[in-house]
């Protein structure tokens, strides 16, 4: 497994096959991510497990308890303290630093699957770097709907070579992979494929020169617990028909709340600042309207 991980890091975005083992949890519950975490965890590590941004959902709590019981490592909900973060669907809002490892659970590793159901052909397309069909599907989205309709799992080109499915993270999180200080490891247990984005690697979403990739607009959304803005929010429908918003990243929300209560907590710099600007200036291009 570790040798496979080295190969994945050496070939950014390339899907490396590996012998995915049986685990005491079912396929589809993060077996790929769990195997990577268990093969990397050492006695000095500190683990954080995220499920849809939350540390306290059933899946996250169970995986965290399982890892702690098997290996005896410490656990945390603080993205800055953790050395190893296993996550499903989210990347923490606070910027990860060098030396940290982010493990993403992947339900569908093949980005070409929607346009090329034959996996053998899809691999050939990767070998040729022939991604015309993916571009064509973006063209079709623009023709039919006037905007890109891919929600999560927006296809990205890694290091200018391989097309990669960034696990079903929202579009909001996709830019966080670009020139990141941390290493991201992505593993699918059922499909037996793992791939990686090494630190400081180019990751660009597919976009036309005149119609650009956009993240989900968080304009006007305020977290009802912490008052935070310009972070990815969960929408909470209320009985009276109104909606409230809550920070999706619960570890970050807890720290903000503790800070407001007067506790001493370290809050790191975030990928998006309080005005909603991404920290790599110019990466997200200004909006344009397709005609």
């Amino acid at each position: 497994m570790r040798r496979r991980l080295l190969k994945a890091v050496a070939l950014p975005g390339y899907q490396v096959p590996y012998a995915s083992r049986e685990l005491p949890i079912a396929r589809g519950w993060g077996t790929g991510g769990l195997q990577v975490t268990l093969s990397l965890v050492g006695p000095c590590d500190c683990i954080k497990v995220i499920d849809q941004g939350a540390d306290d959902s059933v899946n996250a709590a169970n995986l965290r308890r399982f890892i702690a019981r098997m290996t005896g490592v410490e656990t945390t909900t603080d993205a800055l303290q953790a050395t190893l973060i296993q996550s499903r669907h989210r990347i923490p809002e606070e910027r990860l630093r060098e030396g940290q490892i982010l493990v993403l659970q992947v339900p569908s590793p093949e980005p070409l699957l929607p346009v090329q159901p034959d996996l053998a052909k899809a691999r050939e397309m990767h070998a040729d770097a022939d991604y015309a069909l993916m571009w064509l599907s973006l063209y079709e989205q623009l023709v039919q709907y006037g905007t890109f309709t891919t929600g999560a799992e927006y296809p990205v080109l890694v290091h200018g070579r391989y097309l990669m499915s960034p696990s079903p993270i929202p579009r909001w999180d996709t830019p966080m992979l670009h020139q990141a200080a941390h290493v991201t490891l992505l593993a699918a247990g059922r499909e037996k494929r793992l791939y990686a984005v090494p630190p400081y690697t180019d990751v660009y979403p597919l976009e036309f020169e005149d119609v650009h990739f956009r993240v989900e607009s968080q304009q006007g959304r305020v977290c009802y617990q912490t008052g935070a803005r310009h972070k990815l929010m969960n929408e909470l429908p209320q009985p009276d028909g109104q909606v409230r918003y809550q920070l999706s990243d619960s570890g970050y929300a807890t720290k903000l709340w503790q800070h407001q209560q007067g506790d001493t907590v370290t809050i790191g710099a975030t990928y998006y600042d309080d005005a909603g600007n991404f920290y790599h200036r110019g990466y997200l291009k200004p909006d344009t309207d397709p005609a």
Partner: protein
Amino acid sequence: MMPATSTTGAISSPIQTLLDPPRLVTRRPLLQTDGLLKRYGRVTAVQDVELRVYPGEMVGIVGESGSGKSTVLRLLNLQELPDEGSLILDLPGYAETNLFALDRFQRRMIQCQHIGIVYQNPYLGLRMQTSSSGNIAERLIMAGERTFQTMRQVARESLDASEFPLERMDDAPWQLSGGMQQRVQLARAIALRPLVLLLDEPTTGLDVSVQALVLDTLKHLQHELQPATVLVSHDLGVIRTLTDRALVMRHGRVVEHGLTDQILDDPQHPYTQQLVHARLS
């Protein structure tokens, strides 16, 4: 050449000085194949096919079913490799290269940029679930175009050139009639202004009036874009209407070739005679 006629010293050989040498002598053929051989198991589909096509010229291939016409076209489209033989296109940088010897990636680039093909069966040439304009945009994407508005513009222009109703440009081909599907195929083939156009029975299966319209479009495009065109058909009427020269194939071999009118009016080979006389009139 023309000023030579006014000089007095050239009187000794008036014909040579009066006429330009024929284009076939001065120009290099755009498409040149030699000794094509293709076997499928025990069946020899194509043998010893030699073909020269000049820019702006349309060459027809006639023959019965199974005579190897479509195999020749598939070989010319670089989608299959022959067992023997060479294909040379007069492209910058490739003028002396046998294209069959290139690797898969290079072959695909040449196929995409310089060769356009229209199949008899639109299901072979089109993505039926993708919009018609998307089918044309795909060619541009493969050639490296990444600007949405340019793709729209080129799709509109080439659909218009193949006389496709533009208000239906975003409908998927499965929603279109057979004649319209052929027009989408044609628009896709000419989107990148290819040097070589391959037409595999483009009008078979269409009713006579639509056939006439498609033939008209083909003639118009041939005149405008001046590609080297190879037209495969078993319909002698189509061959006579469109092509300059024709080849007659039988059992994978070329049995007769020459100017179209000559072949159809004065066939020499017994098989060609049979073919011409078998026509209902």
